[in-house]
């Protein structure tokens, strides 16, 4: 569950290569391919293969079928239930970003459920990276839709200038809380499932008895199924909320920025 520098394989483990850390502006970047980086790249590869395959197949076949149809259902869902209701017609432009977010997170979430796999999204650095991209996208959409002047004016909350010293920090803080929530929600949900599993297996050690094992396994299977659902749900929620925040930026008059779907 923890990030490590070795890849577990049946009957042993592979040491992953260490890269020398790079120091830029006082921050040390350790770009070594750790387990989470490995599964991150694997997820990216899987998403690429799946999506390109689906696109190729759908271009060839007039009537969708099989696996390509399954991918298409998700694409349609993101378009019709996520992008269009939150952003309207203008959201079509940002669909590639939303689709990538959804599928990438989904595959990373699911990777942890495969034996010997690991969930990259249960690492707070990974979710922070995703939230960072989401943050940039939310600001870019807002600036593109409203213009920079309007965008900056929005930061004052539309109150008297005397209140600006209070309002501006609050609004700026508001900008950061959204992606921070995105980051923590995904990380916590993906980690939470693993911890419950660990606790269930830990019961065997706690009671020092193999008699607890069937119960642990039974509950473990249940939690695994729940995790399957949560993997899908969290990918959806991350995408949905990103789209929602982008939509707020595009239509400032709707302005109910603090409405936020909980898990």
């Amino acid at each position, binding site marked *: 569950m923890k*990030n490590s520098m070795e890849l577990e394989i049946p009957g042993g483990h592979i040491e992953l290569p260490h890269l020398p*850390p790079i120091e830029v502006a006082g*921050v*040390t*970047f*350790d*770009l*070594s391919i*750790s387990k*989470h*980086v490995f599964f*991150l*790249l694997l997820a*990216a590869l899987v*998403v*690429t293969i799946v*999506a*390109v395959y*689906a*696109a*190729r197949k*759908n*271009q060839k076949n*007039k009537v*969708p079928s099989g696996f390509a149809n399954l*991918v*298409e259902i998700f*694409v*349609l869902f993101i*378009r019709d239930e996520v992008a269009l209701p939150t952003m309207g017609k203008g959201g*079509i432009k940002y*669909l*590639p*970003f939303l*689709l*990538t*977010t959804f599928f*990438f997170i989904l595959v990373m979430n699911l990777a942890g459920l495969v034996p010997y796999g690991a969930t*990259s999204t249960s*690492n*707070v*650095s*990974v979710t*922070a*990276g*995703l939230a*960072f*991209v989401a943050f940039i996208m939310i600001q870019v959409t807002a600036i593109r839709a409203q213009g920079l002047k309007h965008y900056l004016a929005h930061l004052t909350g539309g109150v008297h200038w005397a209140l600006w010293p209070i309002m501006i920090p609050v609004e700026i803080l508001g900008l950061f809380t959204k992606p921070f929530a995105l980051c923590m929600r995904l990380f916590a949900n993906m*980690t939470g499932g693993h911890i419950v599993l660990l606790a269930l297996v830990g019961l065997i050690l706690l009671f020092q008895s193999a008699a607890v094992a069937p119960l642990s396994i039974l509950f473990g299977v249940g939690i695994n199924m729940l995790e399957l659902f949560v993997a899908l749900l969290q990918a959806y929620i991350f995408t949905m909320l990103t789209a929602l925040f982008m939509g707020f930026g595009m239509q400032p008059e709707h302005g109910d920025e603090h409405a936020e779907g909980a898990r």
Partner: protein
Amino acid sequence: MFDINPGLMVWTIATFVVLVLVLSKYAWKPLLKVLQEREDGIRQALEQADRARSEAADLAKQNEKNLAQAEEEYQRIIREGKTLADKLREEIVVKARQQAQREIQQVKEEIQRDIDAARQQLRVEVADLAIQAAGKILDETLDAQKHRKLVDNFLNQLPKN
């Protein structure tokens, strides 16, 4: 667990950005285009079907109307024909009857004329015979003129037949 690993963040961001760029070009845009095209196709097909259906309904209505009209026309023609035939028959019968009447009349008149002529003839003959007979009986030549008048008067006094 909460310590942020900047290297991992960089990996995530870089991978994600590359993924967005690659996928939007090779997967999402073609896929969305196909979806859009299919939806447009379906919409068009539905509209076309709707149009065709309404056209067919119009056509059926028109047909029905035409049929009703034709039926009415045909009924009217039959009725008219019947009326005409009746009238014609009537006329012919009347005409024939009149013709017959006329012919009968003519024949009757002719017969009457013949009877009259015959009667006249008879009358003259009878008068002559009477005069001759009277002459023979009286053995005297009577003034023919005078006696003819006498006989005529006598004859006129006779019953007509």
